[in-house]
């Protein structure tokens, strides 16, 4: 469970670094995580990134298959995009004004 940065997209806004509950992200020219194995997988940074440069993935040791998950916030909507290793992708939109049904 960890995150991957797409450095060509990163705009060095440092929002991810400010929000990481483990303070694991450093930003020089672009953002990076020095110790990906220390990541909790909470996705706080993924949701905070304004340019979808951070992808959440499952480590192979917990059955990860190479998929990446990014998020884009639009008002109260959170669009989650899951890019699968076969090149296809799926988007799920959650309205933060809607309660969980379960």
């Amino acid at each position, binding site marked *: 469970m960890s995150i991957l940065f797409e450095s060509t997209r990163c705009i060095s806004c440092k929002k991810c670094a400010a929000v990481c509950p483990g303070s694991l992200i450093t930003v020089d020219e672009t953002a990076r995580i020095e110790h990906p194995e220390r990541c909790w*997988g909470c996705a706080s940074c993924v949701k905070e990134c304004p340019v979808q440069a951070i992808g959440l993935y499952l480590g192979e040791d917990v059955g990860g298959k190479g998929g990446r998950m990014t998020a884009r916030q639009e008002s109260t909507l959170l669009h989650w995009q899951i890019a699968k290793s076969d090149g296809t992708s799926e988007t799920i939109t959650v309205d933060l004004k809607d309660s969980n049904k379960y």
Partner: protein
Amino acid sequence: MESKIITTDFLIIGGGTAGCYAALTFCEHSDKKVLIVEKAGIKRSGCLAAGVNAINAYISAGHSPQDYVDYAVRDAGGIARRDLLLSMSEGLNRTVRKLEALGLTILKDENGGYVTRGWRNIKINGERIKPILAEAVKNQSQIGILERVNVFEYIVKDNQILGALAVSIDEPIFYTIYAKTVLCATGGASGLYKPNNPGFSRHKMWYPPFNTGAGYAMGIRAGAEMTSFEMRFVALRCKDTIAPTGTLAQGVGAKQINAKGEVYESKYGVTTSQRIYGTVRENADGNGPCYLKTTGITPAQDEELKKAYLNMCPSQTLKWIENGKNPSDENVEIEGTEPYIVGGHTASGYWIGNDRQTTISGLFAAGDVAGGCPQKYVTGAFAEGELAAIAAAEHIGQARAVPVDQMGIANTKRWLEGFLGRSQSDIITDTLEDEMQSAMDRYAGGISQNYSCDEECLQTALQKISGIERKLPLLSANNMRELLYILELRERLTLCKSVIAHLSVRKETRWHIFAERRDYPDKRKEFECFINSRLVGGELEVIKRELI
């Protein structure tokens, strides 16, 4: 390291659930200064980082706070403080209304009432619960916030709290923070035991891997009386992602089944620990793996589940999509986590009064570090933060001026500088952490032992942990981040010794899994009491306290 001195009236250590709520409450009762010191950023720090699936401690219509007390005492096998539970339960609904006013989405029925999930739970969208709380704190100008600063030691003289010592996690800065009163709200402890996935995904765990038991360890070292560390917490979770199971069990009625498809929960009971015990037993008896039976749910339920998990644990949704299998196609495998020490779910933590004051004058505790009051969940931590803040506001006027031991503080600073100034050591902090987790796993009831232990194993665990502790002074730190990891390891080792001592004293099995003694497999009347401890002259003194 550069020295910085800060003076405040009310110091809050930890800007998580309880700490943030306490800061807001304090401002309603006092115009004195308040400072939150947090080792990360308060927007997403603590247990609520990813969000929360529901409010799990709420008193719905037709029920009373006393009902909640009875439920929590029953779940804890009788070892819980009724006085603390009642004062907490009385505050639960008030805190929900406050969070709703701050912007939390809560599901309502056509009459405007909250929609419940069972009598204690209400449905929400909890993805933004922590940002909402943090924003309220940031908007309150009376509250000072010091982020990315790690508090590691109290300043105590004559059993009175005078402040705390801290270090920046980025720059070589040593903080001495003086305060008239202090609230410890650091959360509980993960990482004492070898985790479910000790490799790359070792931090994919239930509890925040960044909650390292600082509050417990500071209290132990300062001589505070602590309670019930033997009552460990193990959560039943989805395998691999360690995602919550309650949404499946309560949301779509998924039953726990074994590999033969048999519903086994009726054989073992449905308290928190019995649900995990059943799963462990079924596996041990050759009936595993165990699952939550989700096959057969509707496509609409699939979609709602994926959304619900995105709001609290997105990795589970990622797993379903990556595998191309919905929960309706495939049952969800479940497992117990490694044990944690967490007073929000069990009774572990500071021994406190009903005002949440610890046995150290002027030091209060709330949330996961506060003992005796299990089943708090989020709202219970809020309620405790509220109680502690009100009492702290009153206490400020009574605080006596006591001279501080400046020599001691200077020595502590030099001790830290020793780690930074030392040439690269052969001994690595992470290696010692692995050693500690392996010792706890093997000898103090970890996953590999089906959570059970016996006296001889516990004594071995103590020897091993003491041995690791002796290697601590040999560690070196290249920067402040590495110094933080040394301090966190030290906290965990301090706490491990207390956990082992408590497990050793409770010579019975009152709670399966949480404190499972192979050599004492049954409940014993003489242990219908609290097991407390206090460090006196470097030795841990155990005290049995009557039930309250």
